[in-house]
């Protein structure tokens, strides 16, 4: 059942959510970009371009304390959050990324830190005419608890989980009965076909080493492509001793760094920039397909935006297809 919401209804829904959850909503930042932040802590920016900071960083932050070991050997866990998280304002790629991370972190043995945040959390999609200058964002579907779809004159609410249904219950039914009635999504976005074509080229081994060398020569090792990627899940562990207490944290890692795979002897199975560049693309387009049955890039475009030298995923994929496709 679809619900119909006016702007006031939506604001009322936010108030309700904020009572029960640690509600994170898109906020407008001083330089004009948008990112998730706590409801009430800044200017709400419901619609607009892709969120600058990947929303997955709220579930898996760049630096995160895991535990502390006291001088007497006892272990302390960080205090749990008071309320579960609610992430509001996610578009289809954001939700696909969270689904991707869920599968990785929650498969056995589950990552308890991630699980602690994800359990009881609520994901709220915001799609329809909610993009930059009211651009159309395809509906997200069942990767969320509930979805709000911007139409010309209001919002359609669509619940996918019990929690989502409860939250939408107070609002009137809409005239549209099925979400598909307003779903204008093209059969398959162009990005998907590009990724598939590139994946095929790699699996068929049509891309020579010289290509990777040429791309790698343009990489300045900023690590940005990994850090902004919502499906990158690699982290390393950092220990610091403060007043006799060991603080163990995890921090985002990057496969573009030499030390990512370097062994204590100094030997490195990914010892050249060309190999590491190849891995960055290969992992998403081949290794993930082999492991999970689907491509690991959800086509958010963040790595292309953050790569200082223009060799993000789609730039590389396009060059690869041009040269070898």
């Amino acid at each position, binding site marked *: 059942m679809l619900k119909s919401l006016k702007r006031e209804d939506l604001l009322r829904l936010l108030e309700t959510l904020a009572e029960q959850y640690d509600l994170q909503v898109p906020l407008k930042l001083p*330089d004009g*970009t948008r990112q998730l932040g706590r409801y009430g*802590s800044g200017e709400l920016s419901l619609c607009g371009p892709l969120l600058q900071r990947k929303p997955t960083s709220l579930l898996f*932050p760049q*630096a*995160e304390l895991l535990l502390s070991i006291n001088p007497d050997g006892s272990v302390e866990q960080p205090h749990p959050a008071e309320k579960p998280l609610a992430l509001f304002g996610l578009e289809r790629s954001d939700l696909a990324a969270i689904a991707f991370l869920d599968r990785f972190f929650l498969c056995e043995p589950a990552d308890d830190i991630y699980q602690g945040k994800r359990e009881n959390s609520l994901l709220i999609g915001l799609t329809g005419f909610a993009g930059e200058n009211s651009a159309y964002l395809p509906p997200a579907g069942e990767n969320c608890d509930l979805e709000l779809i911007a139409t010309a004159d209001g919002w359609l609410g669509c619940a996918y989980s019990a929690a989502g249904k409860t939250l939408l219950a107070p609002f009137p039914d809409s005239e549209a009965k099925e979400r598909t009635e307003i779903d204008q999504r093209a059969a398959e976005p162009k990005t998907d076909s590009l990724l598939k074509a590139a994946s095929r080229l790699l699996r068929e081994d049509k891309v020579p080493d010289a290509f990777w060398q040429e791309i790698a020569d343009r990489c300045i090792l900023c690590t940005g492509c990994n850090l902004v990627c919502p499906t990158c899940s690699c982290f*390393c562990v950092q220990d610091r001793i403060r007043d006799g207490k060991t603080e163990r944290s995890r921090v985002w*890692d990057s496969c573009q*760094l030499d030390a990512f795979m370097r062994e204590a002897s100094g030997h490195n199975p990914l010892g050249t920039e060309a190999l590491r560049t190849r891995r960055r693309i290969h992992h998403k387009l081949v290794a993930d397909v082999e492991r999970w049955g689907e491509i690991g890039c959800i086509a958010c475009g963040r790595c292309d935006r953050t790569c200082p*030298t223009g060799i993000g995923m789609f730039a590389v994929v396009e060059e690869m297809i041009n040269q070898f496709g």
Partner: protein
Amino acid sequence: MTATLTTCPYCGTGCNFYLLSDDDGRLTGVEPAGQHPTTRGQLCVKGWNAHAFVDHPDRLAVPQIRRDGELQSADWQQALDLVHDQLQAIAEKHGPDSLMFLSSAKVSNEENYLLQKLARAGYGTNNIDHCARLCHSSTVTGLVETLGSGAMTNSLSCFDETELVFVIGSNTTEQHPLIGSRILQAKQRGAKLLVADSRKIRLAKHADLHLRQQNGSDVALLSGMMRQILRDGLEDRDFIAQRCENFAAFAEKLESYTPEYVAGITGLEPEQVIAAARLYAEADRAMIVYAMGITQHSHGVDNVRAISNLALLTGNLGKPGSGVNPLRGQNNVQGACDMGALPDVYSGYQNVADPEARKKFSTAWGCELPETKGLMSTHAIEAAATGEVRGMLILGENPMLSDANQGMVKKALERLDFLAVIDIFPTETAAFADVVLPASCYAEKDGSFTSTERRVQLGRKAAEPPGLARTDWQIICELLQRCGLKSDYQNPAEIMAEIAALTPSYGGISHDRLQGHGLQWPCPDKTHPGTPILHIDRCTRGKARFSPVDYRAPHELPDRDFPFLLNTGRSYFHWHTGSMTRRSHLLDREERFAFVEINPDDASQLAIFARQQVRISSLRGSITCRALVSEKVPAGQVFIPFHFTEGAANALTNNALDPESGIPEFKVCAVRIEPC
């Protein structure tokens, strides 16, 4: 998650990012500013890790005073009283010029301004300087003479419009990564790239022409190129006639720099010199980009003059996509110079020897000011070693690792009657201090910073300082108050108001106006939009001046006993003396060990294998570090970054100074290598 927009604390590119913090106030990461004109949603690896050192357990959190030979905790009152009493006692007994103040290119404009005020008005000496002495003092001296302003003439956006970039003595993708990436992008869109660097840096792989001239032979190379340009008639005659002076004397000097003569000095082929001249001069809009490879020589100022001459000769000044573009290293080295943390000028390069300027500042500050220019930092260290300088206050610098000839620096610091150090970490220099004062780092304070393109922008507080640490400006205010000077500034914005009132190029700058993307100086009044390109219709000094120069060899070249040329600098993953980056997990993990780059031919001749520990010695000292066998350095040269205390490059370097700028010859000295 809270997001605080601020300015990167590492290089002079001036990227902006958000520091993200959690509910406990702990920093959890960095996100680049998506709309900032320099940043554009992109950062280098140091920017992406700029949160990582902030809450490191090694942060200094309480003032310390040396008692019974050991640094021990003290309270602020005691520590500040002691600093003031000691400095004042030394000034009274031995004269104010027996004191030296070292300011920092890492602290804000407001803090630099206050420290030079403290030295001049508080303790009566112009003995104030900072690490620009070690990086771009040659630029300031050289370009002030030829153009009237020592700053980058153009803006970073000019890389989008240029036809050719000539990079000489700058490993841009490693040291100014977000400028290096713009150069790579310019190359991708079809601009030409000329690289002159003895090392095979990343940009060299993309260059239309890569010249591997001998370190220290730049004047010969540039003179040879200019002679060729004149012979080919590729000079810009209108520009020379209308905008320049002293052309004839300059042109005469070039005569002897034939391609063959230049080839003999530089180790290049004569044809390469000719090709480079044509490549550069045939572009309508060409940018010269340079850094330490040009400035850090005993003839650094001459190198800068030659660069300026080349731009003038081809009319590459005062228009988009052109110019003389020294890349300033530290996030605020431009600002520290602008603020007068220099021995000869007040803020805005107003000369201490000029009675008018002195009167202006002495009226504003309400006290008499010293007339004679002060000591450069490099001379001050020498003077401390001989006992002429007796008291020193060092704010956020680490000369034990950053200055040439560590043995002499150590002697100097040991000999001081009194040393006070203000810093965020217990540095190698702080180990010699009588008093150590804990400071807030960039993430824990507000203030303004000036990037290499003269963009003044804000840094904002995102976290609380550790323990009792205070901001540098608050610490300096305590000393100003003890000197009986105005010290009741409520915040850095108030300090900036005083700076603007006294500094014409910052006249229109206020913290309110710096919200957004900042302002590029000169910004003389409250409605001025800032100045992206300098010297458009006339130069700051009026006519641009051709400054004739002759090649002079480096002070110390390889010989039989010390057969290798030692080149020093930085690596991509670490910053200067490593106090921040070696405490940032990913950066430290990437480069853990002191190393020396050595060419495979040399390595095999010396039977040195990769990652082996080797001993390197010069006339001044000896260190050990790991061999990194690499084609990056040419045969006959080795390269060592100066980040590592356990293999300190500056134990080896030569403190031969440029006679005008006082910069040491970090780029050339002679060493011997042995396997250990």
